[in-house]
């Protein structure tokens, strides 16, 4: 049998995941609805008293990253659940492709899912909490992209691990959220600076940290993913 190239295999895996998502909206719907629930509960939890004294630019970055990280857990767990129920990861493992291409493909699919979630979530959070970005949309997109890449890189690896032992969101959040502390701190700090009207250069080291952390985990996962899938 002809062996498929790495990039083609990556694309095929990503395409398969995205096609499945397009037909069912399973993981995306679950995580988007969940993220709105997080905004709602956050408003109940702190919105009544103390948060009224806080300005929107102090509140929104925190709320935003809280919602993004928890919804990412839900989305990744859902997408891995599908593979587990059909026992399709084993099929993917037997396919004549590079195992790390499976990781890369799933990473692309998870990244696109997370981006779509943010397209809905970010404007909603700004409307709900009355925040003003002052036109720094491109900068915000850059911050979201860098941190979401890291979150997806880590989440795809841990999601596969959790799906192998058949546990859902609880174990995934126990692994993913503490491990992605640097990403969340970078995300909150950089987003906060943008909402305060500061330029991106003031938070460049946070972005560097988030990008470096994401790349570190990306290569680590490429190297170890085959051990996760192995029968």
């Amino acid at each position, binding site marked *: 049998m002809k062996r498929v190239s790495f990039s083609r295999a990556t694309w095929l895996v990503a395409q398969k995941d995205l096609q499945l998502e397009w037909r069912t909206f399973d993981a995306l719907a679950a995580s988007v609805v969940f993220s709105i629930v997080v905004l709602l509960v956050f408003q109940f939890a702190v919105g009544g008293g103390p948060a009224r004294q806080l300005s929107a630019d102090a509140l929104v970055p925190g709320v935003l990253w809280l919602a993004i990280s928890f919804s990412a857990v839900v989305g990744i767990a859902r997408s891995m659940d599908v593979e587990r129920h059909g026992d399709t990861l084993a099929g993917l493992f037997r396919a004549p492709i590079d195992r790390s291409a499976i990781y890369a493909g799933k990473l692309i699919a998870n990244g696109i899912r997370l981006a779509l979630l943010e397209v809905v979530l970010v404007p909603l959070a700004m409307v709900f909490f009355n925040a003003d970005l002052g036109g720094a949309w491109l900068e915000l997109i850059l911050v979201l992209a860098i941190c979401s890449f890291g979150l997806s890189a880590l989440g795809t690896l841990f999601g596969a*691990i959790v799906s192998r*032992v058949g546990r859902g969101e609880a174990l995934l959040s126990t*692994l993913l959220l*503490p491990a992605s502390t640097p990403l969340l701190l970078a995300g909150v700090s950089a987003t906060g600076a943008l909402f305060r009207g500061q330029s991106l250069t003031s938070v460049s080291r946070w972005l560097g*940290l988030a990008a470096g*952390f994401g790349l570190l985990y990306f290569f*680590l996962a490429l190297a170890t993913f085959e*051990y996760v899938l192995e029968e």
Partner: protein
Amino acid sequence: MQRIVSRLDALLLILTIGAIPTALWAAFLYAPTEQTMGAVQRIFYFHVPFAVMAYFSVVVLLGSSIVYLSKRNLAWDDLSRAATEVCLLFCTLVLITGPIWAKPAWGTWWTWEARLISTLVLEILLIAALMVRRYADNRDLGARLAAVIGITIAADVYVVHKAVEWWRGMHPEVFKAGNPRSLEPRMTAALLICMGAMFLLCTLLIRLRYRMGRIETRGEALRLENLD
């Protein structure tokens, strides 16, 4: 038939039994009382070695995880499991002794500061690694997944610490180069004695847990052989 306790273990055990009282003596009697913090500062002679041993176990965990993935010998997995559990023990001790010191010294049990957060993150990730091991259907799968998590934990701890340090810092820097408030010689000696004692204890615990793991692994192999 291999002996359950080897000569090296017996030697380690005797040394540790001698070292622990020496460490207690050094920390409570030999070292002078610190001027501003008073007696509570003495917990430092245990707190710091606990933390160093936790990091030492992380290094053992990283090494054994990598070797297991390349060699696929379950002995390395036994070592990595031993390191995970001992690391969890020392990490927990750090998290217990830290607040006891922090309450009188900082006036608060807990603060969200770099080393505190990175130790807590390490603790949670170690628990998660043990959970994954427990949930896995079979030993090989659990060993492989735990090895992957072990490598990511080791990579994570350093970056987490750096990140939170940027975010905010408060932890006392004891070993900063050129620190004008460097330790009194007797304090340094007491710290080194405690460090040595904890190193012996840590090595002994990892070795004993490793040997226990070897016996469990062999027992399981025999059981499976009998089933066939």
